[in-house]
């Protein structure tokens, strides 16, 4: 059944049993969103990785030891969105048409309250000017502006692609975008096909079906933030680690 944009609730379902931790999603995201190669001083704490793949382990030893890969990006909280609540600049908004939590760097003051409030640690601060090696600025995606020093950024489901899809729909005389026409870069790039993206409010989409499968779970559900990023795994320890988000099993 076709849906209007006002009812859409875009989300993802990531199959952790398929994710091999290759990092293609991180690279595709950085290329799509013009994330600059790191300043010499960047590290795990102050680098910008709008999607970051963590390796988690089951805590066992010997032949029982197992690990899995957990890509974490902005969880696109649907309720009590912490970053929206704390932002003094209204630089974070939830788009009612899509359900996407948008970050507007032009409004951002750089206070980083949102980073402190985000329970998923999925927000990143631009500590340095975005700089590329000489000539590499020619490879920047023309649909996404580089963010300036002093602002926070995060995953926004590749809003450049959403705008492009809307423009194509408008050019074709349609009010709605073609679902096949809009896919974030990480979804397109995943060589394992581990990420399913779509309108979770439309029960006919594959994403909505996958989100309701028995092995689906979300990170930190006890906080009641209703994230729109779902994960799947048929390994109980992976589901447990994800839901509890235990620090001791996360490496990275």
């Amino acid at each position, binding site marked *: 059944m076709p849906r209007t944009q006002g009812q859409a609730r875009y989300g993802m379902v990531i199959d952790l049993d398929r994710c091999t931790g290759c*990092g293609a999603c991180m690279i595709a995201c*950085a290329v799509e969103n013009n994330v600059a190669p790191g300043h010499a001083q960047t590290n795990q704490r102050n680098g910008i990785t709008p999607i970051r793949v963590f390796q988690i382990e089951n805590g066992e030893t010997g032949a029982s030891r197992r690990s899995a890969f957990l890509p974490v990006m902005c969880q696109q909280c649907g309720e009590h969105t912490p970053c929206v609540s704390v932002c003094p600049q209204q630089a974070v908004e939830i788009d009612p048409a899509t359900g996407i939590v948008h970050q507007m760097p032009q409004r951002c003051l750089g206070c980083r309250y949102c980073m402190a409030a985000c329970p998923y640690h999925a927000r990143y601060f631009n500590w340095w*000017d975005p700089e590329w090696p000489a000539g590499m600025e*020619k490879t920047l995606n023309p649909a996404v502006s580089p963010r300036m020093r002093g602002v926070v950024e995060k995953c926004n489901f590749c809003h450049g692609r959403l705008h492009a899809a809307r423009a194509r729909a408008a050019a074709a005389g349609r009010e709605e975008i073609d679902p096949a026409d809009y896919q974030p870069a990480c979804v397109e790039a995943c060589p394992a096909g581990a990420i399913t993206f779509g309108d979770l409010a439309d029960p006919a989409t594959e994403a909505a079906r996958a989100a309701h499968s028995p092995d689906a779970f979300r990170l930190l559900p006890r906080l009641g933030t209703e994230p729109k990023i779902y994960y799947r795994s048929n390994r109980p320890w992976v589901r447990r680690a994800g839901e509890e988000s235990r620090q001791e099993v996360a490496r990275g």
Partner: protein
Amino acid sequence: MNLDRRDFFKFVGSSAVGLAFTPVPWTLLNDSSKWSQNWSWIPRLQKGELRTKFTTCTLCPAGCGVKARCVGAQPVGLAGVAAHPSSRGALCPIGLAAHHQPYHPSRVRQPLWHGKAVPMEEAVSRVRQAIAGAEVAIWDPNPGRARSAVYRRFAAVLPHAVYLTAPAPEGAMLRTLGQMFEKPVGELGIDLESARTVLSFGAPILDGWGTPGRVLKQRANFRLIQVEPELSRTASLANVWLAIRPGAEAALALAIGHVLTRENLVDPAVVRNAADYREYLEMTAAYQPENAAAICGIPADKIYETAREVAIGGPVVVIDEGAQGPVAGLNLLFGGAGRTIVKRGGRAPQPLLTRKKPLSDSVFRGSCEKWLSDTSFCPEEIDNGSIQVLIAAGAIPWDRFEKRLAPKAVVVSLSPWNDVRADAVIPAPVAVESTMDVPAPFDARTDMLSVAAPLSEPHPGVIDPAAFLAKIEPSLGTVEDAVQARIAALHRTRRGSVISYADGSTKRLSEIPTPEDLQKNLLAGAVWIDDPPTDPVFPRFSLSANGQAGHALSPARTGWRAVHGLTVSPILSKLYQESGLRDRREA
């Protein structure tokens, strides 16, 4: 009014304090930070017509299809091609940022001689001088491409020269398997699409092995049993991980063979086709799981369970990271010949030598006859201390060459990246700047050939390695000529089909009227794929044949494991470093 010194300081001090309570300093601070946020070094986005180009990735032998989003002629984003029969829409992390390579800060843009920039003509003349009368080796890390013919030709025209290369290590098992048949079977491929169980002996199946896109897209359809001493990424994602003692893989393979043969789990057709089934029974007699358990460190009941599970688990393919006969032979025992291990059919015509000549015996231990065949020498076959000039058309594996080089050898690296140990570095185009033919990867089901069209114009200071050699020996011809000759030879075969990347449409090669049309098709983004072989049936085989004792490692690995031999986009180093996903050694 008198204003003394004390009053003046009072006024200034109180003004400063008072000013702090007004918005003025804070507004100025805010504004200045905003101004500096948009200073001139913040890049401005390019505007222009958006186009889509198609090509093939040449960073590793997998040869994945690439869809490039371009602003004008400049690529700004790469993605996989869903219509590609092998890569299936996937592109690895290295390939996704391949368009950054032309601007990599460590790229060499001018010839270097002992670290100092020299003009191109001077570099040519110095290399010409160095090779005069010397024993020269040409190192080609990516054999089987048309430019390899140019390198061979170069070696052939010099009085004392040899063409060196190394087969891809990942195809070693298939080469071993090919030797186990009574008659030559040609090149073998893996039909992963038919497999329901994959038994891997240490191969990083889920970590960039083979054509990564094909393997990962197929993953949901097979059960993976990983035999490996340590918990690798593949082992952690496998359905079953057997933690084996290092070096005990052959013993486990023979123990599995023992269970299969003693419990009548072998297909009678396999027994009939095995020329040495009795000898195999004798060979496996000593490898009862109870005995093998002590060698492998895997409990006997687990070995029984694995053997039985694999035997009934549908078509099986056994993949070995090495080339051990007992492991490769399991494919035959499980009845994989013709099901999961297939003949590739014909071969895309290979570039051939135009001149044959005997070589100086002083360079080699082996006979000159080998040179006249299609095979090549590995660096290990060269006498120690005999190479006086090494010309490397790519990354130099120094550990393999150190002993082979003469004390005052001249090493010339034809590469986009600086090699500080080389005497000369001649800047070469990066992958997205070259026209290159791409043969089928080692694991392909059928033979394939595509031609990568350049996405970017080469930097003005760089020169194609073959063009550099042509400056020394003008009779070599160009890479474009060699590619054209290969396409013309392919066109004459009238075999197979051409699949377009843009829309997935398929056209029979016989319907393409001229070689020029075929070249145009391939350069626009298409892959030629061979027909299945006319005779898919395999001859009788020998199960007890030993594999190659060892295989020389080549830097030409596939997928993101190729990161070890490549200088990758800075964005990869950054993200891998910041996420901790791969250690710095890997990125």
